[in-house]
């Protein structure tokens, strides 16, 4: 019998996943800036340093390139490191290690090695942290073969996907929206995994398909509830993984609804929505489309510090409702 799920926050679920992995496998350890005594910038690692000691919950100097390099090297030598970027924006300092080393080494060395490292990526806007600490760079990394890029939405998925990521033989980047850390939901006890390559239909519907991930899925579900009141029945697909992208699930849904909208917080231009819409346009689902594919992405601008402008730069519930209603009623 499955034990009843408890209610945990998204941050607690991630912490629990890391603790379970460290209990199960002595090769698992954590690295990152201020993740020890301070408990992490967003209190995700919390008390883990006291439970597992400073050798396994390692505070690193302020050098993302150095920290990520140590993590990649340790992974090459059989360890299972989890490296936390304090803000995912700082991963740019470590792109050489992520893109040119972690993603490539299995291929450069003919499969003789693998790099089982996990990079944790606190991301997104809405916290008043301005342009250098608020980006959604999923599309950057989803462009790189050799990486897996995932973005859980619920605490249950956060724990299960992180455990799957730790067990995965290849580098995985897990994007964690900062506004989700305090959201709560049921989380099963013990060890379980959620697949890293499957999207989920989180709300079935008939009139249009809305594809989103992470916080955008939460907002889209809220929008779908509003839309339902005015007779628009939206199907919502939570991507969960951005690389690989579960295009099959999206196409199946489009064949049913004939209308597709992509909601993502990353900058609209060259974003996740561009890939989804062109993949659908290339697929057999093309012949089922009854309207243009709509992208509702982040503003083409650095995230502003002004709270009002910051809000305006990312899709909000009302934006999703409006765009979906137009699409579903044949106004576009």
């Amino acid at each position, binding site marked *: 019998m499955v034990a009843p799920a408890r209610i945990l926050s998204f941050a607690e679920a991630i912490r629990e996943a890391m603790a379970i992995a460290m209990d199960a496998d002595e090769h698992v350890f954590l690295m990152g800036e201020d993740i020890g005594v301070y408990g992490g910038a967003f209190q995700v690692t919390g008390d883990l340093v006291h439970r597992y000691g400073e050798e396994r919950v390692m505070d690193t100097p302020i050098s993302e390139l150095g920290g990520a390099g140590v993590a990649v090297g340790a992974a090459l030598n059989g360890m299972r490191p989890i490296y936390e970027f304090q803000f995912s924006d700082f991963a740019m300092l470590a792109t050489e290690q992520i893109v040119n080393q972690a993603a490539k080494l299995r291929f450069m060395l003919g499969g003789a090695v693998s790099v089982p490292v996990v990079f944790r990526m606190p991301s997104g806007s809405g916290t008043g942290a301005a342009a250098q600490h608020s980006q959604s760079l999923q599309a950057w990394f989803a462009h790189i073969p050799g990486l897996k890029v995932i973005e859980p939405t619920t605490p249950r998925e956060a724990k299960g996907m992180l455990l799957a990521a730790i067990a995965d033989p290849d580098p995985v980047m897990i994007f964690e929206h900062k506004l989700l850390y305090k959201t709560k939901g049921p989380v099963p006890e013990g060890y379980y995994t959620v697949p890293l390559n499957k999207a989920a239909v989180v709300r079935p519907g008939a009139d249009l398909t809305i594809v989103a991930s992470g916080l955008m899925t939460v907002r889209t579900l809220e929008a779908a509830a509003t839309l339902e009141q005015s007779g628009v029945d939206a199907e919502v697909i939570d991507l969960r993984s951005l690389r690989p992208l579960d295009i099959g699930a999206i196409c199946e849904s489009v064949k049913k609804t*004939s209308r597709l909208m992509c909601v993502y917080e990353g900058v609209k231009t060259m974003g996740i929505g561009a890939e989804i819409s062109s993949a659908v346009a290339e697929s057999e689902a093309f*012949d*089922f*489309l*009854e*309207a243009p594919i709509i992208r509702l992405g982040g503003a083409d601008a650095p995230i502003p510090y002004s709270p009002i402008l910051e809000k305006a730069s990312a899709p909000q519930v009302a934006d999703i409702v409006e765009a979906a209603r137009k699409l579903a009623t*044949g106004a576009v």
Partner: protein
Amino acid sequence: MAVEVILPRVDMDMTTGKFTRWFKNEGDAVDRGATLFEIETDKAAMEIDAPASGVLRGVSAKPGDELPVGSVIAWIYAPDEPYAGAAAPVARPSLATPAPAGGATSEQRRVESVAEAASPPRGVRATPQARAKARESGIDIAAINGSGPRGRVQVGDVVARATTIAAEQGERIAQGAGESRPVAIGEAKAAFTGGGAAAPEIPAVDFAKFGPVEIMALSRIKRISGPRLHAAWVNIPHVTHCDEADITDLDAFRKQLDDEAKADKKAPYRVSLLPLLMKASVTTLKEFPTFNAALAQGGDALILRRYWNIGVAVDTAEGLVVAVVKDADEKGVIELARELGALSAKAREGKLLPSEMQGATFTISSLGGIGGTAFTPIINAPEVAILGVVRSKTAPVWDGAAFRPRLMLPLCLSYDHRAIDGAAAARFCRHLAQTLADMRRALL
């Protein structure tokens, strides 16, 4: 890049619109947002703004043209953009292709001439699903008028076209069979006795022969409402039932409400008899649901409507329009009075939206402010009944012991005899009169 000027969809069920006038001419400078042209739907006239700033080019729509929604009727070029005369770009050109074997309808022909005048065709706007459906059904997608945004062909248009083609083929087969059958003289006579609605025409008269005349154009509203009234008059077997209601107490109550309304500090309004009539009508309509119905196509069923939207005929300088108060059953008299005031004001300014003129389930036409003793209102099709009221007057009423002066309101209910019988109409009017005599009944 040149921007298309299209005939927009201003109403959900609109498929064509009548172009009535340009406010700018070919070659004029236009500003985005400024009024550019005017169209008429079957319900209203609307002014449409320019979609961009620039120079108006390739004007193709002429007053009187009946065009499908989404037709390109002109282009707006950037001031320095080269313009190659009639060879303007065209995005919705499909209609210039030869009509299907069954022969084009007059509407298609009109549309074609407009499209040809604009410029040579290039491509068809259609959704991928519509294209797939057309391929599958062997239908030429270029021959379809799209109902989507900018005239885009949607899958429903292809399905409709397929249905029409099938029906036309069926008709031709039936006609072919009829042609070869000789008709005996006696048979023809027997067939004629049934009669029909083929009304003889009223012959034209040259009035100038008898004296000086002047031509006055009918107002826009009259031109639109005329054919609709005519259709209702000739298609519906009207009967008008007359009754009267004692509104002595009701009118005293109305005056009290009206005084309070006039004294409202924030937003004064007026309370006429109409909102009270609406309230009483809803009460009676709920008791007699067939009066809130419409006849189903084919005339073999009634569509009972479980909402109560009351149309009110409003007299405007341009002519008669019907403003519709939605969900009157959910509103109190004060709310009805305020809404009616706002709608009437909009109607008089010619600003009513199509959505504010449709969806009525029952209509009231009041001439009470003017006078009269009775009249026979024409049913606002597809409704099945309309209530006409004229001026109330104080009359002696026998109460069993003596004549008392009572304020009596004449009621004239026209009903569709296909849907409603005389006895039901008499009961409806009695119920309404009793409700008006004692509005407490509306609470029951």
